[in-house]
Every structure is written in C-alpha cells, then in structure tokens.
C-alpha cells in the first residue's frame, strides 16, 4: 500500500500523462543472451538466430547473440545448466528416432532435467505421466493417442521453440543406378540402409561411391563413434529387426517376433545366417550380443540393454526376452539397434580387457567381422572405407562394392558428382539452390529431397526467469513467422516446425498440435494479458516480479 501511494505521489509530481500506471509493473527484463554456432559452420542456424533476435527486439527485449563453436556451446548448456538463457540447438534425424520414445521421453521428462537431455529444465508432472505411459503401451493405437497428447502439451507449454524441420537433399547418378531401386526412408531420405542393399546397377558400373565430409573414427560394433560411422555399422552387422522405410520395425535377422505380454517378447532367428568367415550365427552369439553391453565394456550401448531382465533360449531358433519395465520402444531402441556380434571374437577380447582401463571401444578388429549384407574390405584413414557385397546374405546387395569417400570440400563433392568420381551424393551442407542448378544442368543426376524427422530449435532455460513463465515462452514462439526462417535462412529447404515430432513421421505426427499463430501483435497481446508492460520501450515483468539475475 505504501508503495502504491508513493508511486502515485511520484506520478502526480511528475505530472506527465502516464498511460500505464508505473505501480503495475515489475522490474524491466535483463538483457537476454542467445547462443549460436558460427556462420561459417552453421549458416542456417546463425541466420535464423539473427532473424529471431531482430523480431524479439521488437517486443521490447534486449536480445544479444553470442556466437561460439559447438564444443564450447554444448559444454556451457550441458554442464552449467543455470548459466545461460537461450541457445540454438538441433536434433538430427536417425532411423531409431522414428520411434517417438527418445523425443517424447528423453527430451522432456523431468527425470532427465538434471543430468540428461532435458537441459531446458521442463518439469510438468502431467507430461511425465503421459511420457511414461506411452513407453509402456504396446498397443500401437493407444500409444499413438498418448504421443498425440504429448505433442499437444509441448505445443501449449513451448519448453522449446521449434523452428523448422529441414529438408535434406541427396543426389544419385541415374546412368549408374536404376531410379526405381532407390528407397526413400520417411524422415531420413534416400541415403539409408534399404537403398544400400536394394540399389540396382544399370550397366557395368556396380560400385556405390558416396561421400562424407566427416572422418570415420572407428569401425567397432560396441562403440557408437559417429554419424558417418553408423552408415558402415548398419551394413556390416545384422540386427534382429530393422527400422523400415515407413519408420516401423520389421523383422530382419529375426524371422519373426511376438509380444507375449507387455514385458515379454519372443524372437525367432532366421536359419540361414552366417558370419563373414562362413561359420553359422548361433543363438549363443545373439544372446552374447545383448549381454556384452550390459557390463562395463561398452558404456555407449549399455542404456539400450539395461531394461533387459533376462534372455533365454526357448528352442532351436527361439529366444525369449524378459523386460524389467514395459517398453514399446524396445523394438526399435534395442532390437533394431544392437549389433549382432560373433561371440568367438568378442568374448575373449572382453575378458582380456576386463582387467585394463580401456574398454571394448578401444579394440579395433583388423578385419571387422559381422554377418551383414556387406563385408569389410579396407579402410584408408581420412580417405575411404570400402565394403564388398556379401553374396551369401539372405538379402544380398545388388551392388558390388560400397565405397565411402571422405571429402571435406563441399564444392569438390559436387565436382566429383558431375565427373562421376562419386555416384551418390550422401552428404551435402551447402546451398540447396546450387545443388538444384547443378542437377538441372546434368540430365544423368537425380535429386531427392526429404523432410527430416530432426529439427532445429531454440532451447530456453526454464530455470531462469522470464523463461519459467509459459506465457512469455508462448509470446516468443508466436512473435515470428516460421515461414520467414524457412525462406530466408533455409532458402525454402525446410518446413515450419512446432513440436518434437516431424510431419515426415506420419505414424506419430499430430497435425492438430501444429497450429501456431504468428505475429508480433499476437505476441504482444499474450504478454499484455500475462501482465507484462513496456517501460520506456523496454519490456518489464508483471507487477511484483523482480529481476533476480543480472547479466
């Protein structure tokens, strides 16, 4: 009361025509910092952040953009969770993310807020309940309705401000490969496992020659060593299931699988599986493959097998997995992820490593051996990895060899595509218009563009006001038109995004949650309704709220 009186007296003394009573406002909001990676390495991200900062300044906010490389940015965001305001971030598309569990649970469940991927600090018990329930629901229709609900809650609460789902472009040479033999995987694109085994040569050239800008770190079935490395792993080692082109699990090394109840699953192994040395793949090998990561020797794979209570042999070719907790995502997150490895190679190795500080990740087989559709041929560091078709495989590739070239220079990769030095452009980070022009001028090239299941977003730190206020986050998310980002930063090669599930993932995408109003006026209205005011052109907190953090 005292404060109101004194404010009123002040206003009267000043005698100015104050339209917004000064006593109804809190402190003005401190300058807010948003982190982005450099323009040189991430031009679209940098451009998006500049556009956002420009729009948000129009709300009366003092927005500062701070640029730093990924190693520094992720260190700050991940390990100093109360020290940053906002950051650009990205979720890349991987086949296993076609199951929504990782995106629904790991990104937003409160249990991962302290040390895991929920670094924005979103804590909503109602959401936790749904995220946990969808995990346990093996009935796909019931699970879908839960995942839909989760998307609606994220759209309403905006713990992350999703910007776009980029469109990824790959090119192949039609004079080498039959167009109809190339498979497009939803949310992933045409560079995928199914294309590698299904692509059919037109004539004499039978080698798939593709490119990557990144080096291959390791070729080791117990080490998750990098995105490019995973392309090799999926071809050398079989898995019980594979993520199909439609994003749903399908039998692979397992002939069939069957949920006995929500915690028990039976798997029947194919009869014709052989290691690359010709010896048969046994049930013991399969059991070993799922048990090996459970110890301390393969820490990266451990989380994917930690839900397995037991595996037992129930027949000549049948296995029974008993789970600790019901898990619908088990099929894709575990059965389609764990590499089936030869026990005779890895059991002695793991025993030997048990007493040493190194683990199984540091053992590089001279000739990596699996049972997959391709066999290892050679690896020249920083140069190329070569695999050759395994004709004895139940799904033998139509191509003869699979040769991955390491090409750090994007323009040179285009030159190679034109000259035929590569016949499949599998990694392109440049301007999409340049690629379109090249393909238009070269009739033998075919471009296929796919909306990614991954997305680019702005993570807001909910531990720090004003981001703890849902209305404030909604206002930020409403203030700009996502089509502006698509057009200006991505040159049209993206679609607007609102929640964590991409429209590319038809099985789980909730179109109803994706309606997002856009415009500064709408954002201002949201802020006004929540009690935010403008003080001398600067946005201030609602009445009574003080600025506790100083930049």
């Amino acid at each position, binding site marked *: 009361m005292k404060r109101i009186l004194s404010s009123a007296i002040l206003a009267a003394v000043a005698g100015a025509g104050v339209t917004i009573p000064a006593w109804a406002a809190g402190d003005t909001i401190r300058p807010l910092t948003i982190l982005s990676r450099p323009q040189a390495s991430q031009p679209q991200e940098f451009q998006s952040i500049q556009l956002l900062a420009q729009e948000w300044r129009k709300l009366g906010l003092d927005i500062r953009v701070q640029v*730093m*490389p*990924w*190693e*520094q940015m*992720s*260190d700050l965001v*991940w*390990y100093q969770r109360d020290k940053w305001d906002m950051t650009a971030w990205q*979720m890349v598309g991987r086949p296993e993310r076609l199951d929504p569990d*990782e*995106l629904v649970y*790991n*990104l937003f469940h409160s249990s991962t807020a302290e*040390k*895991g*991927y929920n670094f924005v600090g979103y804590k909503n018990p109602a959401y936790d309940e749904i995220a946990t329930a969808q995990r346990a629901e093996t009935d796909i229709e019931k699970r879908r309705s839960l995942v839909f609900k989760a998307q609606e809650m994220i759209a309403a609460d905006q713990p992350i401000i999703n910007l776009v789902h980029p469109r990824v472009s790959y090119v192949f040479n039609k004079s080498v490969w039959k167009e109809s033999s190339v498979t497009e995987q939803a949310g992933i694109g045409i560079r995928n496992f199914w294309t590698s085994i299904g692509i059919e040569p037109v004539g004499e050239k039978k*080698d798939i*020659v593709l490119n990557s800008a990144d*080096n291959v*770190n*390791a070729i*080791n079935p117990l*080490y998750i*060593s*990098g995105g490019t490395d995973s392309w090799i792993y999926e071809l050398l080692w079989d898995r019980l299931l594979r993520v199909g082109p439609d994003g749903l699990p399908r039998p692979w090394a397992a002939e069939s699988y069957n949920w006995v109840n929500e915690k028990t699953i039976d798997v029947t192994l194919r009869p014709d599986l052989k290691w690359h040395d010709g010896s048969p793949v046994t049930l013991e090998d399969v059991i070993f493959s799922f048990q090996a990561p459970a110890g*301390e020797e393969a*820490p*990266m794979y*451990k*989380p*994917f097998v930690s839900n397995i209570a037991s595996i037992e042999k129930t027949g000549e070719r049948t296995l029974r997995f008993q789970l600790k907790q019901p898990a619908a995502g088990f099929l894709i997150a575990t059965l389609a992820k764990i590499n089936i490895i030869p026990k005779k190679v890895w059991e002695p190795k793991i025993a030997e490593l048990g007493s040493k*500080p*190194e*683990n199984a*990740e*540091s053992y*590089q087989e001279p000739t990596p051996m699996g049972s997959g559709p391709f066999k290892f041929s050679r690896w*020249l*560091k*920083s*140069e*190329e990895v*070569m695999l050759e078709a395994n004709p004895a495989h139940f799904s033998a590739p139509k191509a003869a*060899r699979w*040769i991955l*070239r*390491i*090409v*750090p*220079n994007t*323009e*040179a*990769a285009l*030159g*190679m595509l*034109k*000259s035929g*030095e*590569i016949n499949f452009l599998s990694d392109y980070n440049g301007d999409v218009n340049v690629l379109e022009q090249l393909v238009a001028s070269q009739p033998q090239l075919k471009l296929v563009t796919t909306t990614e299941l991954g997305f680019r977003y702005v993570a807001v730190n909910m531990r720090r006001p004003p981001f703890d206020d849902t209305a404030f986050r909604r206002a930020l998310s409403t203030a700009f038109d996502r089509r502006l980002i698509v057009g200006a930063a991505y040159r049209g090669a993206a679609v607007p995004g609102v929640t964590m599930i991409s429209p590319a993932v038809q099985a789980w995408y909730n179109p109803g949650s994706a309606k997002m109003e856009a415009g500064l006026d709408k954002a201002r209205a949201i802020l006004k309704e929540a009690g935010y005011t403008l003080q001398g052109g600067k946005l201030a907190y609602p009445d009574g709220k003080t600025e506790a953090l100083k930049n």
Partner: protein
Amino acid sequence: MPGLRTVASKIGQLLFVLWAVATILFLMFRLMPGSPMAAFIDPTFTEEQQQALMRQFGLDRPLWEQYVIFLQNLLQFELGESFFYKESVARLVLQVFPNTLILTITSLILAYAVGILLGAFIAWKRGTWLEAVSIPIVLTTRAAPEFWVGMILLAFFSFELGWFPSGGAISAGAEFEGLIGRIFTRDFLVHLFLPTLTLAVYLHGLPLLLMRSTMIEVLDEDFVTMARMQGFGEWTVVIRHAARNALLPVATAFALGIGYAVAGNVVVETVFSWPGLGRLLVKAVQSRDYPLAQGAFLLIAFVMISMNMLADLLYRLLDPRVVHAG
C-alpha cells in the same frame, strides 16, 4: 667441425624447448573453452556414461595430476590414445604421415627448383621490363590465399576441363600394392598434381625473392668482376660463380621448409580432400581430442626443432665464418 660441446649444448636446448612446448600444449588445450564431451551429447547420454567417459579420459583427476601423468608418459615415449579414434596417437599420425610428406616435399622441390632458377634469372635481368613484370606477379601469387588458388585450379582443370580428379589421393576402390606401389601409380600422380601445384605456387615466392636478392648482392662482389675480367662467358659467370654462392641462404630456407612441411597443410588438404596430417590435427583441436592434438603437435615441434638444429650445425660445416662469428 662443430665441437662435442656445441652439439651437447644444442641437445640440451632441444630438450628444454620440447619440455616447454609440451607444457604449453598441455595447458593450452585444457584451458581452452569447450569440452571433449560435446561429441557424445545425445538424448540417451546418461549420467553414468558421462562419469565413465571422464574417468576413461583421465579428466576426473586434478590438473596437476594429469600433468604429471602426461610427463611420465612422455618420458616413456608414450603419447596416449585418441579420445575418439580410440587408437594410439603415434599410430594415427603414422597412417597419414606418408601422404603429407609426399605432398609437401614434392611441392617444396618444385617450388625451390623453379624459384631458384627464376630468381637467378630475374636478378641477372635486373632493371629490364622482365623484372618490372615478374616481381609483381610473384608477389601476387605469394599473397593469394591458398584455398583461393586451389579452388580456381579445381574449377578450371577439374570441374571444367575434367583433366584431373576433384580430390582424394587415389580413385575410389583403386587397387595397389603397399605404399611404394601406391605412390608410383598413374592414378596417384594424377591426384597429386593439382594439390602440389597449389602448394608450389604458394611456396615458390620465398626462394625466388631470396635467390634474387642474394644474387644481386653476389653479382656486385669482386670475385664476380674478377671472373668476368678473366673472360669467362656470361652464362658461366652467372651459374658457376655467382649462383653457387648465392645458394647458401636458400639452402637454409629449404631445410627449414622441410621442418614446416611435416605439419602438413590444412588448407590444401581440405580443398583437395588430401588425406594428410593437417586435417587430422584441425579435427583434433576442434573436437578437443587432447591426446591427439598434444601428441601430434609435439611430434611436429620435435621434427621442426631438430631440423632447425641440423641446419644450424650444417651451416657451421658449410661456412666456417659462422663458427668464428659465433
């Protein structure tokens, strides 16, 4: 002849410099903002995994303890294991080292052969239009950024004319027998051409200008006048008498050039997708692969300092005046 004492003191200096470089490298990479954990951040990255990684990398120990372990390992010639490749640093470096050496040594020889000849020639033609035209051209090529020269050469000879491949050291899937068999294939040499040319264009300026300026000095000296008075032909005077004497500083520059060459050349390697040490190093620094970055830089420092020392000692052999002056 350099005395035993000189050699011993040189080796002492070498060891001191290496220790200093090792310490600076150790501190530099650890105090730089950013963390090697960045590469592992993923929705399924658990607290347990994070701690396991820190233990595995030895980053859970205090800095001084890490430093002591690092020095102890160094004394046993142990450079450690890369965080990401999970392979010993020495082995990783050795795998790409031949590629780096071939590219840089070939370019150096080309650059010095052309540079020395042209430099001598331009000095001889002092004051003519040839000098007026050639010096600005040399300065321009020397100042031109390597990536630009490389991209222009690529765009013209590879993308447009299709005479040379667009990158790499051999064609996809090309067969070869061992290292020597690989180098002496037509395929390899065709791939080597453009990167070598790019690097040579960049490198040739130094020997050329150095040769030119020493030649000008030497041509003014009494013994040259004496040779002319003796009636030797102009060609004999320039090549046999003047150029041989002008070569000394260029030879030193060449020895040092070899020292620098072991570091590889990040720019040329990246433009031409050449599988060399430079690219490995940049990646190691970017991803905070401390053991790989430290180990590789230390190896490079060792070679450079050794070459420097060798050049110094050789100089004493070649030119006795150095000993008396020093």
